[in-house]
Every structure is written in structure tokens, then in C-alpha cells.
């Protein structure tokens, strides 16, 4: 599969190329994999993952640090040295984020498990090859974003740091590198949906049956013209037939009626639903908001 499979450091030219530094990261759904090398390098597949299925999230890395522990080296009674472990890689990184983006990231990257792929400055794509399942996929990792809260005097991107703890050393031993014919910029960058902010401006009560929200283009202007079809329920407390009816109140304000059940009724105390704005052209998401959790109050 790879010219560099055998140890040929002084041999074939292809094997002497060093990996350039990481420039972009794809944070993928933990179940995302590529069945073939063609899929692994397919621009259409990557774009679809970013703006249709939303199983890939592109992040531009501004700075990063490899925080992998050094291995334990023990000295045997005969003075021979041995390595007693294989430290699993870890890293921290800072990303190119607006303040509003970072706020969304803090809510999203909360220690859950993802699969991470890297794009280097030279356009190489680094991931792992699973010989058992014969698929290409990102490195499995838990990711948590933490903020220092207070605006940073220099390097504002360092206000939020992502901690990436990889799960399996073997995945790095089985790393796979290939160079797509396309570039992350502009092809993938341009495919990323425009971010919206959605915040509740009232509380949903069982008696009222609706919530009012304000939608803006990230921290910018009011986002107008949304309709019922642009609001989706991502998750709920096992509710059925969740239906929205949206009224555009103007200037980015919307009243969202939320009902449940086959014969529509208001949500009840204890119900919860997570909603999001996804404005699409056909199946492609052009605009997407953060998630808004609605817990029904008395």
C-alpha cells in the first residue's frame, strides 16, 4: 500500500518526505470512515460530510503543542534499558475562531469522543488505516474545549484551548498519508455553513406552548426570513411527532410554537427538546445555528 512500508530512510525519494506541520483539523463523528482510498480523497464526500450530513467539522489550527508523555524507560538489573509503555499521543491546540464560534465550540466539544484527521501545510491528509475493517478513518480522541474566560492581552485565539486526548497508540502506528488533488482552502473552507447564533428571549411554558428566539449572523446582524422548515429538532426526551410552527416577528425575532404527539399538544413539564436552525438549499446546509436546549417549565 505504501512505498514507505519497509524501512527505507535512505532509499526511495518518496520515503524521505517529512510531514509538514498541521494546518487544519477535521473533527469527525466517531462512526465516520472511508471505505476506499478514493473516498478518503474525494472532495465531494468531504463537502457532503461538512454541509449535508454534518459528520465533519473543519477547524483551522493557529497553534498547537504535542503533549504526549515521554515513554517510561526502565533499567534492568543487568543495566539493559527497556521501554515499558507506549504513551498514547495527546495535544492541545488553538483555533481560528470568532468569539461567538468559540462559545459554540465550548458547548459542543465537552469531552465527547470524535475521530480526528489532519491536513498539513503541504496539503497532506493524515489519518489511520484500520486493517481489520479495511477502512480509513480519523484518530479516535476525546476533545474538550476550555476557556480562560478573560480576554487575552496578546494572541486572542489562546483564550480558548482544545485538549485532545487520543485513544489508541496503534492508530498512529498505522497512520496513512495521502495528498488530495484539492486544497482545504478554498474548497472545504467555502463549504462550511455560515454560523448563526440563536438565543432564547423567553421561556417555554406548558401553558404558553411557544418560545421566542433571536437569531443573528454569529455576533453580527439580525438574521431575517426564516420559516418553519428552517427549524429542526435534534434530540428530545423521547417525544414523538415534534412539530414547530414559526412566526417571523421581524428583526431576527421569531416565535416558535412547539407541539408533540399525533394530536398536537403543548410540551409538558419535564419535556425537553434541542432545536437548531438549519437553512438549506435542497439538502445543503447554507446557515446553521448552535443548539438551543429547551426545558419545559411549569
Amino acid at each position, binding site marked *: 500500500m505504501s512505498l514507505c512500508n519497509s524501512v527505507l530512510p535512505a532509499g526511495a525519494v518518496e520515503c524521505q518526505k517529512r510531514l509538514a506541520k498541521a494546518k487544519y483539523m477535521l473533527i469527525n463523528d466517531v462512526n465516520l470512515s472511508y471505505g476506499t482510498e478514493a473516498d478518503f480523497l474525494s472532495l465531494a464526500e468531504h463537502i457532503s460530510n461538512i454541509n449535508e450530513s454534518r459528520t465533519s467539522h473543519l477547524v483551522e489550527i493557529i497553534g498547537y503543542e504535542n503533549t504526549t508523555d515521554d515513554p517510561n524507560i526502565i533499567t534492568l538489573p543487568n543495566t539493559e534499558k527497556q521501554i515499558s509503555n507506549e504513551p498514547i499521543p495527546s495535544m492541545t491546540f488553538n483555533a481560528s475562531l470568532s468569539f461567538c464560534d468559540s462559545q459554540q465550540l465550548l458547548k459542543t466539544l465537552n469531552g465527547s469522543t470524535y475521530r480526528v484527521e489532519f491536513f498539513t501545510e503541504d496539503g497532506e491528509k493524515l489519518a489511520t488505516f484500520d486493517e481489520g475493517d479495511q477502512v480509513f478513518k480519523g484518530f479516535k480522541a476525546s476533545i474538550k474545549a476550555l476557556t480562560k474566560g478573560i480576554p487575552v492581552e496578546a494572541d486572542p485565539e489562546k483564550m480558548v484551548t482544545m485538549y485532545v486526548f487520543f485513544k489508541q497508540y496503534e492508530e498512529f502506528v498505522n497512520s496513512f498519508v495521502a495528498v488530495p488533488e484539492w486544497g482545504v482552502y478554498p474548497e472545504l473552507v467555502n463549504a462550511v455553513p455560515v454560523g448563526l447564533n440563536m438565543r432564547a428571549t423567553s421561556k417555554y411554558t406548558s401553558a404558553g*406552548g*411557544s418560545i421566542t428566539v433571536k437569531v443573528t449572523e454569529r455576533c453580527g446582524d439580525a438574521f431575517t426570513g*426564516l*420559516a*418553519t*422548515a*428552517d427549524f429542526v429538532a435534534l434530540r428530545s426526551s423521547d417525544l414523538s*411527532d*415534534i*412539530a*414547530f*410552527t*414559526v*412566526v*417571523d*416577528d*421581524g428583526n431576527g425575532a*421569531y*416565535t416558535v*410554537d412547539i*407541539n408533540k404527539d*399525533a*394530536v*398536537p399538544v403543548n410540551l409538558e413539564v419535564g419535556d425537553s427538546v434541542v432545536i437548531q436552525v438549519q437553512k438549506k438549499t435542497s439538502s445543503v446546509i447554507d446557515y446553521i445555528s448552535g443548539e438551543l436546549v429547551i426545558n419545559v417549565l411549569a
Partner: protein
Amino acid sequence: MAKFGGWSDVYKHLSYDQLKELSDKKGYDKCEGYDFDKEAKKIGIKKPIKKKKESD
């Protein structure tokens, strides 16, 4: 003026009267240019045709 954003497809299975009851309850008729029949038709719910009474 508030603008009605359309009915959800989730309501497709409702009868005309059930959807009308929901509309009245929520007061959507106050929205600018709201036409219940037109909005209901967009999700496939049409106003029932009243049958003429048969003459003796």
C-alpha cells in the same frame, strides 16, 4: 408585522378541522397576509367539499 412561517410537514396527517382548531388557538390569523386554506394546502390539507343535500 408578524409573518406566518408555514405549517410543519409533521401535521400532514391532521384533518382540516384539527389544523384549523390549532390555527385558531394560536391566533395565526393575526399574521400579515395569513390565509389558512392556502397554508393548509401547502402541506396537502384541503378544505372538505360539502355534499349537497339530496332532494326528496
